């Protein structure tokens, strides 16, 4: 039972990513068990959920890094499972992805990191390339850091550089994997604002995976709450916050105990204590 909080008819129209009945398991353990949802064009969609519910796995399925056990992932109308490796790579040129820790290439400096996709896929003259790279660095406010190596960057800066790299090929879809983890409040505010601004300025479709409810609900148009491999709620942030389903309430309001128990499953306390002696 998955309570659909918004009108389904609206969501179907102009969906960039469409997922139907998605199943995925690792070593026989089900990570995703029947996920359905859609991402509309030019929206910021948040995928939320407690740790270990398969959010990152879902992203990897959307980008074709993993193949589903069952079900269908459609991006821009193309079924990923049917694409050849070359066609998948062609599709990925229209996607940008920001990894959890930025995943900058450690042996290249900031400038070369941002230039990397251009150098690999285009034959731009150096002057034009420089212009593009500096424009993207300017957009994330790090043009001054162009000669620094990744090791010299703070966590927030590394993520902004990675963001510049993700948009350097002018993608249509931008995917963020836990962009707020380990950031101080200032960097977090910067990244948060960048997500919204880039989405609107460049006309992107953004997908953000996160468990920072308060932060992400501030920028998202649409939220999708994942728990134990299923979508338990979907809709605009306000609708999620107002929901009175117990599992949604627990996650959205950060309650320590609820349908997700505080205690890891254990035998009876008294029995276990007695056993030791």
């Amino acid at each position: 039972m998955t309570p659909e909080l918004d009108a389904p008819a609206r969501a179907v129209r102009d969906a960039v990513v469409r997922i139907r009945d998605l199943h995925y398991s690792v070593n026989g353990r089900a990570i995703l068990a029947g996920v359905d949802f859609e991402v509309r064009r030019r929206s910021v969609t948040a995928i939320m959920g407690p740790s270990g519910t398969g959010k990152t796995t879902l992203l990897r399925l959307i980008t074709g890094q993993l193949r589903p056990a069952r079900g269908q992932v459609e991006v821009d109308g193309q079924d990923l499972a049917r694409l050849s490796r070359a066609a998948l790579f062609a599709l990925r040129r229209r996607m940008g992805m920001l990894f959890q820790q930025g995943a900058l290439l450690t042996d290249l400096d900031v400038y070369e990191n941002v230039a990397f996709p251009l150098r690999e896929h285009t034959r731009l003259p150096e002057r034009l390339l420089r212009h593009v790279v500096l424009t993207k660095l300017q957009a994330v406010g790090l043009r001054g850091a162009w000669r620094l190596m990744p090791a010299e960057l703070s966590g927030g800066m590394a993520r902004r550089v990675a963001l510049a790299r993700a948009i350097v090929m002018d993608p249509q879809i931008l995917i963020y994997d836990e962009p707020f983890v380990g950031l101080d409040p200032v960097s977090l505010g910067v990244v948060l604002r960048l997500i919204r601004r880039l989405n609107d300025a460049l006309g992107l479709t953004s997908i953000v995976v996160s468990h920072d409810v308060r932060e992400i609900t501030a920028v998202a148009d649409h939220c999708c709450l994942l728990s134990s491999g299923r979508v338990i709620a979907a809709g605009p942030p306000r609708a999620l916050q107002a929901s009175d389903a117990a599992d949604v309430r627990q996650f959205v309001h950060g309650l320590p105990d609820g349908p997700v128990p505080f205690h890891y499953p254990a035998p009876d306390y008294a029995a276990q204590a007695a056993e030791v002696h």
Partner: protein
Amino acid sequence: MRLARDLAASLLAAVRSVGGYTLFAARVLAAVPGALPRPGLVIAQVYNTGALSLVIIMLSGLFVGMVLGLQGFDLLQRFGSEESLGTAAALSLLKELGPVVTALLFAGRAGTALAAEIGLMRATDQLAAMEMMAVDPLRRVIVPRFLGGVIAMPLLAAIFSMIGIFGAQLIGVQLMGVDPGHFWSQMRAAVEFGDVMEGAIKSAVFGALCSLIAVYEGYHAVPTAEGVGRATTRSVVIASVIVLLVDYLLTAVML
């Protein structure tokens, strides 16, 4: 009963890893033509694996050669043929010590660096990021490193052997008083072009094996700090054992 099951399981794992290595090698070789239009990447790896190993190779070559000078002199003197010291030193360096010791040092110096570097790229999602940027990490990262090792190893082994011969000459001629004319002329008369080729072929094979093992272990590292450490260790251990085993096979074939 349980012992048998464990044995079967580890046997199965061994067969699986042989298969994994073979498939990976095939993928790397298939990706080689795609990497050739970017010689800059290969050159950078020749620098990383070759030029940076130069000091350790030269030092080791010198000392191995000096030991050969001492031991060889002592041994040959018992048969009254210390003039053959040059021949003995040159042949053992060219055919065995040069390729093998270079390969072992390479596995320890360059191989671990390769495995750790690639393992770290795996652990920090750099390889996945490349995939996402529609760049094949095999072509961009793995193949240049593999080719760099294949090119660097025969050159390193040649340098090792050359320095080693001078080391043997240093001890034999300067210290022990072997006649320098005999030392060089006997060596020239006895050593054939085929001996040099044998060493070169061996070291090229070792270069391919050591680099392949290092990049394989790095590429398949468990993406954690511990996993990278374990991959590094595995790459040295596997490479060293394989080098010695293949050395025996190659020697048997080429003798």
